């Protein structure tokens, strides 16, 4: 095993943590907004796939990766808009619609891929990394964490942005009110459907970015079903985080680190079945829940449609 744990290898592992974390972080933060506003968004796997497809398509067609991200955000928002229309405006059951949107997005993106890319499998160019002056000079950590694609920094910068948004703005209060007691928000003169629609669209945007990150940066290619359950883990992260963006980030990092650890152990030649390692983050979370017994408080109105005057 001599010489395996070179700087380059450790850097690659750390970079792998980041690459695996970013889509989970975006999915988790996105889900968090919806949940805060009282919408249980089971459709984020679908939003993510649409983001991945839209991101890839635009990036490939325009040759501009940044435009690709825009496309991914729009792709996610299209699914988000459907979710908002069906669940917020029409008050349909959120679980039914969420699952339907996920299935639909899986089908649509796979069909589109089949029509457009399945014979050529075009791959994108690499997004140029942006070294952070100073920090990127630190050995190991510098090249691994501070010589990344600009979108990575932006994704992590969302965490303080969200903390600010939730704690320091009216929107934060409104989202919380929409989730905990929509009638109170309504009688305070703020439209509940409007706030929830904004929340769901924001979810679509963020989760779409997460999907675009997968196809544009993390893989450089689109293949059907490539989100591979990332969206569902995002739901778990958002629920465990109880409204705190930093916890979403923490959770996403734990998951990312576990994935990277799997690779590290295997490359190091340690013979651990991947099935077992894959279970680790879930086992860890269940153990924490069991031991710490934290009440994972969810918004009181989560999942319920709000109809003014109905009791």
């Amino acid at each position, binding site marked *: *095993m001599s*010489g*395996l744990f*070179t700087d*380059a*290898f450790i*850097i*690659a*592992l750390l*970079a*792998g943590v980041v*690459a*695996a974390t970013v*889509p989970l972080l975006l999915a988790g933060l996105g889900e968090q907004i919806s949940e805060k506003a009282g919408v249980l968004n089971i459709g984020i796997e679908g939003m993510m796939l649409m983001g991945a497809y839209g991101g890839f398509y635009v990036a490939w067609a325009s040759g501009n990766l940044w435009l690709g991200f825009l496309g991914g955000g729009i792709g996610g928002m299209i699914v988000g808009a459907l979710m908002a229309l069906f669940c917020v405006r029409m008050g349909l059951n959120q679980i039914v619609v969420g699952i339907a949107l996920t299935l639909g997005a899986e089908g649509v993106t796979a069909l589109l891929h*089949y029509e457009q890319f*399945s*014979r*050529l*499998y*075009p*791959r*994108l*160019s*690499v997004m140029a990394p942006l070294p952070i002056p100073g920090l990127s000079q630190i050995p190991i950590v510098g090249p691994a964490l501070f010589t990344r694609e600009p979108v990575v920094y932006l994704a992590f910068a969302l965490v303080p942005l969200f903390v600010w948004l939730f704690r320091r703005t009216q929107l934060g209060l409104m989202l919380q009110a929409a989730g905990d007691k929509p009638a109170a928000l309504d009688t305070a003169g703020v439209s509940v459907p409007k706030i929830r629609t904004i929340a769901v669209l924001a979810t679509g945007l963020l989760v779409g970015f997460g999907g675009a990150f*997968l*196809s544009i940066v*993390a*893989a*450089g*290619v*689109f*293949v*059907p*079903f*490539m989100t*591979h359950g990332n969206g569902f883990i995002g739901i778990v992260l958002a629920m465990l985080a109880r409204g705190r963006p930093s916890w979403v980030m923490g959770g996403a990092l734990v998951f990312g680190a576990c*994935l*990277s650890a*799997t*690779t*590290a152990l*295997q*490359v190091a*030649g*340690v*013979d651990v*079945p*991947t*099935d077992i390692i*894959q279970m680790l983050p879930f086992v860890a979370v269940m153990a924490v829940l069991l031991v710490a017994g934290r009440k994972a408080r969810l918004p009181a109105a989560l999942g319920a449609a709000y109809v003014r005057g109905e009791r």
Partner: protein
Amino acid sequence: ADLTSIAILTPEQGTDYGWNQQGIEGAKAAGAAAGVEVIVAENLGYGDVRPTLQELAEDGAGLLIAHASGYNTAAPEVGAQYDVPVAVVDTPQSLKEGAVADYTASGHQGAYLAGVLAAKMTRTGTVGIVVSGEPPSWNAQSTAFAEGVKATQPDTVIRYAVIGPAAYSDAAGGKRVTESLIAAGADIIFGQGNGSSFGMLQAVETTKATDGGKVLFIDVIGDKTPIDKGFLLSSVLWNLEPVYAGMIADVKAGIYGTHNYDINLKDGSVDLLKTANIPDDVWTEVQAVRQDIIDGKIAVTPKYDAASVHALVTGN
């Protein structure tokens, strides 16, 4: 016996430059050659395949090719029910006269050659194997590749990583894991995966080896030359046409189910792809090994279990 149509069932769409595409194209070619209609049922997933098998049998298919190890229980059962011969993979013991034959397709001989090639070509002395899961045929190719490497250049380091237990479509995982292997020194990647292999390809194309040079990719089953950007070193090509042609002939001759089928270097159903990235002298040396295998001077035994792979690639 009279045979007018055969059917092939694949778990995924036949556009993967890999397992599914090879199965479908092989069946089509064999059918065309023998004047037999070929019904294709693709993208059936790994769930409940019985209804499709039954329908194909009812539609008159005279041979059902169940092209996924996940179908190896259902196919013989439906075949027995409808009295239609079936072909399965990964279960040689299910051979049954007139009913079931196995064509455990493994390019292990080709993978061995790929290992020889990799050992000769590596600059850094480290090669990597990335797989998106551990099904039998990939395990066989992974072990054979490792054996080929070790036989050629015993001090070559082999790094092995599985993306995840069933990460067939995890392209991002493919790229991430491949990048780690490259960072661990590998400058040649032997990659096996469906959708995820495009992520591996992307990693190879966009990451420099530790010596600053180019990383090269060895693919399996299909020929990705049409979509290559100059990083494809080779591919363990499969050609299932002879296998299916043999089946068709055997069904017609009434001897189906008396023996299993395989793919090998000898009849050309397995081969190593020559690309511009392979220098001629190396290619010549590899061809010599190829001949040795065909002549039986080198025996490559397939090992289908994951434990054998791990035993070979750990401890270096």
